[in-house]
């Protein structure tokens, strides 16, 4: 089944990171996922985490240019959330026999595997950046994540000119790269 034009519009908005659209998707589906989690041994906080993770999976999917879900948005989010939650439960060694309803479940295994790999990579990046310490951490975040202008960064960090700030930024970047790739290669070895 092809998604309706309305849902495809939502997916496009999501890919652009449009706040209004995300709000609509959030509002229309959150309660459904919350009941799912709460009826399966979870708390409202678990529901929030799982639902947001499912939205991230969807976000990554539409970011890669694919607006074709081949099922309804509702079914997709439900399937992803359910998979994620069952995984989490099994990690915590809690046994649950959730009744599978094959009609409402869409196969999402591949997406979740890809998501887990990405999540591990982001986690690696986050740790690498955190381990830099200040001011490197803030400097790199300002330039590469918040995309601030070098001139602005120089003034706000108190460098006398943009060149000095730039020089410092490259030193920090070099350190970050070394830390990141050391972890990255380790991570690959484990697999």
């Amino acid at each position: 089944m092809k998604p309706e034009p309305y849902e495809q519009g939502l997916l496009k908005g999501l890919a652009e990171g449009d706040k209004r659209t995300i709000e609509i998707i959030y509002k229309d589906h959150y309660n459904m996922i919350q009941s799912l989690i709460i009826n399966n041994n979870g708390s409202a906080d678990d529901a929030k985490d799982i639902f947001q993770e499912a939205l991230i999976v969807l976000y990554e999917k539409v970011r890669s240019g694919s607006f074709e879900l081949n099922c309804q948005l509702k079914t997709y989010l439900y399937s992803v959330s359910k998979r994620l939650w069952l995984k989490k439960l099994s990690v915590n060694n809690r046994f649950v026999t959730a009744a599978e309803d094959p009609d409402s479940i869409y196969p999402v295994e591949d997406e979740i595997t890809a998501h887990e790999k990405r999540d591990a990579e982001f986690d690696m990046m986050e740790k690498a950046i955190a381990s830099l310490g200040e001011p490197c951490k803030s400097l790199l975040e300002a330039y590469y994540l918040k995309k601030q202008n070098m001139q602005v960064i120089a003034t706000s960090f108190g460098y006398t000119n943009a060149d000095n700030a730039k020089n410092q930024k490259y030193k920090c970047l070099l350190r970050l790269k070394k830390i990141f790739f050391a972890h990255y290669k380790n991570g690959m070895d484990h697999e």
Partner: protein
Amino acid sequence: MSELNMLETVERYIRGEMNPDERVQFEQLRKTNAEVDQLVVEHTFFLQQLNRFGEWKKFRHLLQFIHTDLAEKGSIQSNRLSGKARVIYLFNRYKRVSSIAAAIAVVTTLSISALVWTLAPASPHSQFEELNKKYSQLEYKTRKQASEIDQIKRSKTIPVDMPFTTGGTGFIIDPKGYLVTNAHVVSEARTIAIQNNLGEYLVEVVHIDKVRDLAILRVTDDNFKRYGALPYSISKKAGQLADPIFTLGYPRNEVVYSQGYLSARTGYDGDTLSCQIEISANRGNSGSPIINRRGEVIGILNGRQTNAEGFAFAVQGKYIYQLSDSLRNADPSLSIRLNGRSNISSLERSEQVKRIQDYVYMVKVN
């Protein structure tokens, strides 16, 4: 070429910041030098990774924001609750009780203030106005009914029929859930709760020092989540005259930022426990942290002089250390670890404020 220069060149190449000549030259180098070629590939991958990480972080942040927003508006059922029926039931049940309680509270408040006004002798201390916030009668009634419903929705641990009357500000000093505020904010309290964007929690007073006007609170609420490390530190030093400072507090139902400077090293009437700061403080700012530009808490705001606008007094930060020491001596199980090193010293002000505001709470007293 050094490693650093090489990195800069490669990055300019990837970002397309080279002029055409330079570009041709560099591409030639790439072809002949495998190491350079490898570096370009590796760095392209790295920048992509960094970029995607940034977008991912931004998206997560947005989701968090939307969740809080929708939960606040009631568009989603953010917390477990057993159906609408329960809310309506509780609302009806407590409506009558709470309006009687409100009426009694109003009468009591008015008659006590009338008594105080007529009987109190004129002393220099009457100039010193404690920054307790008293909700006005009307505000009080309407807010109470709204908050009752909110409380049923939000938390089972705070009873629904609890009217909170006065308020101040408090901030976290130990991530386990210890806060500090002014003694005068909580001295006559039966029940105390704290509230900010993250939620509303019950707390108890574990130690109070009326001379220094300080109190330590501990969160007793089950819903409270421990923090990671504190962004700011508590400074033992008094600070220098003219040091720029800022504060975050709850004079309103929303966190409010103000800034100023340290204007005298002693407080009201030469009081050596405190210091004087030039800042616009309002009712409800009592207990706000006074933070210097390195992100160190140098004091706790505790009052202002009624006949002078624009300056206030603050209890010095070193007394928090003394207070936590005496608490440890009194009860070794309650050991508080104070953070001695600020993690936000080199950040710009708005970034510092962003990190700090989750640690500052409105203190509501019953």
